[in-house]
């Protein structure tokens, strides 16, 4: 299997590590939330454990650890293994962002 790193070009899959679905976003909760811990726990429970298992195109996190060490977001068809677009995570390199998150 080959993955086209946007920085390095097409590479053998062994250079990469797969993390999972790129859709879930890490919830942001204040440390001393007046609402108590439940809303945060519920949100984090979903974030940590619940995943859609799509038979089709998914956006996934891949880490080019055996190469330029960039985190990538790749569109992959889980049925045919075909890759669509592969882009760098927003914080790869020295990109300066106005605020956290995508």
């Amino acid at each position, binding site marked *: 299997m080959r993955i086209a790193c946007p920085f*390095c070009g097409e590479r053998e899959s062994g250079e990469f590590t797969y993390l999972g679905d790129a859709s879930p976003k890490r919830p942001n909760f204040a440390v001393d939330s007046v609402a108590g811990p439940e809303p945060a726990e519920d949100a984090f429970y979903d974030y940590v454990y619940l995943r859609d298992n799509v038979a089709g195109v998914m956006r996934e996190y891949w880490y080019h650890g055996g190469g330029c060490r960039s985190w990538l977001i790749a569109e992959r068809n889980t049925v045919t293994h075909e890759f669509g677009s592969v882009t760098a995570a927003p914080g790869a390199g020295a990109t300066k*962002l106005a605020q956290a998150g995508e």
Partner: protein
Amino acid sequence: MVDYLWNAQSPLQKELVAGRHGVTAGQAGVTLTEIRGIMLVQVMARRGKAVETAKAAKKLFGVEPPSTPKAVIGKIATLIWSGPDQFLAFAARSADSQFGKLAEVFAGIASLSDQSDGRCLSQISGPRAREALAKFSSLDLDDTMFPPGATATSSVDHTPVNIWRDANGADGEAVFNLLVFTSFADSLWKTIVASALEYGLEASSAHAE
């Protein structure tokens, strides 16, 4: 009082046996040389400072660092792309404080990490070099696909490596540089030697110039 000796040791002290290995008939198909005495500094632009980093590099090295996988030869160092907005500055280790100089120029603009001892550098050349490399590297090192000046961050034996191509040698053959992590050097040297035995291998050690 005791005089302590602080001799630098290469990680290849045991595994590198200079001389001819493998097939002995004819010219050696592969030449493998450890390059010792290197200075290597990882330069990583700080957020929003990629342009300043390039400017600072231009001032110090006379060239901008490559923004795509390439190696460019500067005044006092070769700049090797190692990822987005980062590069390795490579030169022969000298008496003066090279890291200090870089730290001054890049202060507040880029973060630096001295990797001079964290990596081991070898040079691979010879008429059969590409065939040997093909045994342990999945990269396309064809002449047009990986021309002089091309570089790659990749893996060998599932360990990270940097490869870049110099200008061809005096014999017209391609010259490849391979930078591996120091702790893996002993193991990877063995892999490289094994790949070249059928072509005849000439192994040696030299100092960076």
